[in-house]
């Protein structure tokens, strides 16, 4: 590429193309790069499966005792507020109306997380 001060522009451009192609074609340890990428892909696959479950478990562990107490307290007070716990649609709707909204947000969060896990697969 250094020797063509009077070469025609087309030829000089073609030579520049060749030199740039040669620059990008210089040898690289392809195998090492691909092996590294494969390791990252394996890690990514595991994390994709595990992350939603780990998040759900962490949330459950953090909020589980609180929810358990809330649920216990709620059930014990149901009769005093005139709600009779029945396993019928109407009974469950009455129970749902008594539960705080953040309990439902939590349940919905777990549901979305689990659904997302299966959707990703």
């Amino acid at each position: 590429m250094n020797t063509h001060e009077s070469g025609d522009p087309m030829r000089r451009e073609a030579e520049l193309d060749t030199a740039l192609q040669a620059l990008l074609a210089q040898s690289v340890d392809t195998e090492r790069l691909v092996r590294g990428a494969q390791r990252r892909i394996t890690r990514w696959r595991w994390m994709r499966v595990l992350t939603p479950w780990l998040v759900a478990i962490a949330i459950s562990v953090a909020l589980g005792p609180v929810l358990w107490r809330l649920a216990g307290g709620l059930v014990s007070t149901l009769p005093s507020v005139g709600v009779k716990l029945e396993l019928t649609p109407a009974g469950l709707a009455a129970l749902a109306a008594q539960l705080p909204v953040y309990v439902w947000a939590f349940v919905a969060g777990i549901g979305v997380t689990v659904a997302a896990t299966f959707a990703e697969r």
Partner: protein
Amino acid sequence: MDACATDLDADAERRLLQAARLSADSVAFTRLVSPHVGPIRRYLERFTQDSADADDLAQETLVTAWRRLGDYDGRGRFKAWLFAIAYREFLQHARSRRRFWRALGRFRAEPAAETVSGDAPAASSDLERLLDALEPEARSLVLLSKGVGLSHAEIADITGKPLGTVKSVINRATRRLIDEHA
């Protein structure tokens, strides 16, 4: 997993793509991307000026390609699709690097953009020095066009720049390289 560095014909590429996509065949994926790993790594090195960063971004490019293989619709060339990913990986890297230096700037001055790395590979030829002297945008476009062999339309698609801009930047950079390298 052995890397095969020979170029693939269109049929082989289609078969490997199908295998990699439908049965998540990592060997097929490796054979599919191997011919492009070297050029992608070299291309990234001209921007990061750092061998380790170039390795890291080249590997991230492959991981992203694997994750998004289902998005490749086969309309454009696979090579162009891979370089589009590499280009975006580099932009993302540059942004996070700028954020890092901005945050650090509260404590000390940010180094000049061209000297961010302590592991900069030496420009081994006149051509590399001239390339490095180009604006990053011009360097990127001229490498994609002349080095990788992508069309102006493909480059416009990859970079999101208007076709006219791509053509004029490449022409200007090419003239400069020819004039100064002659």
